[in-house]
């Protein structure tokens, strides 16, 4: 892999991250926020893979595995919270649940 491919991939990963971040801020439905979070995690994961491949080391892949586990745990927790919120309070909109600050 040459430097040009690496920079393209890094740009792509930054773009993925930015898209996810924008989605997280712009969407109010909890499900879409979860999807955006997944996108935000996919960005750095791609970055690690690209960096690892460019330097020829295993660390990038190891970090990717870590991110994969993190994303799985995060989505499991997020969906569980979403389902619980749906059942208990019938909530879809993330902005309406603000009572936790008390």
């Amino acid at each position, binding site marked *: 892999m040459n430097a040009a491919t690496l920079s393209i991939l890094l740009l792509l990963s930054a773009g993925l991250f930015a898209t996810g971040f924008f989605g997280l801020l712009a969407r*109010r439905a909890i499900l879409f*926020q979860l999807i955006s979070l997944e996108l935000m995690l996919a960005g750095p994961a791609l970055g690690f893979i690209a960096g690892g491949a460019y330097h020829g080391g295993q660390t990038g892949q*190891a970090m990717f595995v870590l991110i994969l586990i993190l994303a799985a745990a995060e989505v499991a927790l997020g969906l569980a919270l979403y389902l619980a919120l749906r059942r208990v309070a019938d909530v879809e909109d*993330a*902005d309406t649940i*603000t009572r*936790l600050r008390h």
Partner: protein
Amino acid sequence: MLSPYLLLLLVPSPPLAAFLMLGLDPFFLRRRAVQVLALLGGVAPFFVMLPLAAVCFGGECHGVVPVFTLAFGQSEVALALLLDPMSTLVGLTVAAVGAMVITYAIDYMSDAGVADLRRFFALMNLFLAAMLTMVLAGDTITFFFGWELMGLCSFFLIAYNTGLPQAVAAGRKAFIITRFADAFLLAGLLLLFLEANSVRLDVLIPAGATMTEDRHLVIALLLLAGALGKSAQVPFHTWLPSAMAGPTPVSALLHSATMVAAGAFMLARFSPIVMSEPLVQAIAAAFGVGTAAFGALSAIFQTDVKRLLAYSSISQIGFMVLAVGLGAPEVAIGHFVVHAMFKSLLFLAAGDITHGSDLGTSMKAMRGAARRRPVAYVAYVAGAASLAGVPFITAGWWSKEAVLSAAWNTGPFGIAIWALAFLTAICTAVYAFRPVLEALLPEPEHRSRAPHGHPLALNLHHRARIGSGFITVPLVVLATGSMLGGVMVAPIISFLGAEVPHAPHLPALLAAMAPFAGLIGAAALTFVPSLAAAVEGAHDMRRPTRLDHKFQIWVIEPYIRLIRWLSRDRRPRDADLDFERQVRLIRWLSRGARMDGVYQALVVRPFVNLVRWLSGHRGGGVDPVGSAPVALALRLTQAVVGPLAHDRFDRFWMRSANRLVRIWVMARAIQTGRSRDYALGLALGTAALLVIAWGTTWN
């Protein structure tokens, strides 16, 4: 060529598959299908373990099945299953007892609704799978995974009756206390990993045993603390008697082959590390024999069969910890195997006798058992005889004798331990035979005489005298094992590569007399009315009873006089005080040393109060943490500026202090509670940190 050890992967898989099928329920299973699936998942591991055990007993007994390997520089993370003599023996025992308990549960739980049945059997299967995974684990990660999964399952199963607040509280208590101890185990395992650079047990344990640094002591202590918590040893014992809130099959599995016994197994597994540290070994022996004595004493004063058996488990596992502490982990495993059989038998038989009784699981519910449930009663007698260690004909005698002999052979320190263990054996026989003799008494009045209607129709929850095959077969199999298993103890110990310890004739003879002494004690406690009433009332004894007065007059008083006469003490004394002390001791023992109250006062209540104070629930402000600096600033300004004359300069300062309140209100307004705002804040903060990092490393 495929290695026969690949079968190892198939040992925990059937219960795991049954858990997934029952837990997710993709096919909307009917009642019968749920029962069939649960039975298949519970029994299959035993039939997979059999050929593996045959291979192992045949001589080729070191098989490792790698599951997943990740090399990281010098370290490696290698998940694997391991077949060696210890895991074979324990795995076979766990699989057999698990199969029996799940078979029994099919009939025992047949009153439950389909949804509850599904939940129950899904969790029981997962419980069994977790224990098998832990036993067969070839690395610390798999080991810890099974260990934690078991803690989680026991939480759900103890709190199975979600409608009962005390069941949920008992589950929570078990979970929190065992998690607290698990943290020690995790720390110990991580330190070991740093030392050995590998998670594989066959590398890790020798590396840990040959270590010489100070860290070695810390690791051994951490491992011991983890085992004490999981095995409900003093001072962590309080969760086990409360765990009786779960259904009887849960208790049978929890107490015999899984969960509680896991701590003893872990100590035996890591025994090279513990044994290379004499101090930790002595601590383990002291805790073991202390817990054994305490559990047996407390069990005598219980009025509930299941609580009695719970204290008995605490005491018996104490014997295993003692064996490891004496440097004989092989003996501990021998006792593990025998204990798993007779303890599950005792729970299953007691559960069958008291099932559906309107007296719950209290000792009175055992009455009339010989006539009502003859098979279960005979099985219970077999289990109790094994627990008490009736010589030669029961398995319990052989394994307990091995522990006692190991203690005797350890030297002068060991003889003191032997004496304590011997007294414990007598107490064990007393509490073991109490329910047996109680069952000989006639049933309480209100059950044998029906108030109205046909006596037969109202009598004894319409159950046949002999249970179905699902109940009878496990009872008969386990009873046979509890009696004849004694012939296996010596082969087990020599199979693990050790000699069976033999004590001289005198201590062996004394130990053989212990069960008979205990039987006399139990008969006294059951058939002498005043003694029986005293034990009955001991649990909620508020005032001294008549028996206490008698005891006082005949035993305590002469003893005190003797002491006073010997010490030539002529001062007047306060008789009421001595008496009060003795009553307090019995009450203290019957409630498990009141350790619960200590935890409540030291840990739970301060924590609850802190949370309440922080949340402004009672007495606290709206936001004590946030308003503390503001209050401090106001107080400080007033203290400094207040005494001075009030000119314009002072007023300016006072105003700035008051402004702080407004700033605080504004700062609180940042907390909107909306996740999107927090996400933006997080992102801006991270970006700022990145900019600072970039700025400071700029060259």
